[in-house]
């Protein structure tokens, strides 16, 4: 995908993240400068998690997502969730914990999901940047209210 088109789509989507949304969900927007979308989740119990989306070639390719601590350092381990979306085993490509969920690059490039193509779901309402973030927020909410 041409970078200008990818950037335009990225900017169109993140521009819709209104302050009311960020406040009500407890989201902190660290960066929305293409190709990086860096969002922190905060819960009432004090827990926090930061996800860094690398959205180069959006939406020809799904975003690559990295777990960060609040200071921006990569996490070497992540709290597991009941749905097994947050996976602590090393990803074959990155060697780091990864998100094992449709819509995430590390899922679609994992040998276990070679037949689960991004192209089949690309462009759906659940698989906009906001849709993917919302799914991950609900995963995290299952651990932290």
């Amino acid at each position, binding site marked *: 995908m041409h970078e200008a088109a990818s950037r335009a789509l990225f900017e169109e989507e993140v521009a819709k993240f209104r302050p009311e949304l960020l406040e009500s969900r407890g989201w902190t927007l660290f960066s929305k400068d293409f190709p990086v979308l860096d969002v922190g989740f905060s819960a009432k119990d004090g827990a926090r998690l930061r996800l860094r989306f690398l959205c180069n070639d959006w939406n020809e390719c799904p975003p690559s997502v990295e777990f960060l601590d609040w200071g921006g350092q990569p996490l070497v381990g992540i709290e597991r969730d009941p749905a*097994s979306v947050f996976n602590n085993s090393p990803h074959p490509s990155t060697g780091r914990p990864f998100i094992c969920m449709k819509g995430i690059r590390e899922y679609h490039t994992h040998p276990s999901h070679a037949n689960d193509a991004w192209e089949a779901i690309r462009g759906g309402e659940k698989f906009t940047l906001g849709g993917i973030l919302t799914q991950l927020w609900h995963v995290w909410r299952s651990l932290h209210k």
Partner: protein
Amino acid sequence: MEEHHEKSVEVRVVTTSGIYPEAGFDRVPEHQVVDVVLKKADHHLHITNTAGWIAVVGGRKIDIARSYRDNALTGRVEIDWGPDHGAGGYA
């Protein structure tokens, strides 16, 4: 003669595609089914497919096929509307 007072709630829908209404809150009867305002939000925000979406108020998932009253919602109601959590791939 018995006087009839229609109770109402003030409602706003929050999504990653935007907010409905654009400013403030919509005042609707408390007996109205929640799905009515969600349909308006979908139309206004150009959301075309909400299969697998959930509505959450104050951290609690609500039943969109029932009314505000049946969901025990009063006063100002902010509905968080979006896709439910994704399923793990068990890689």
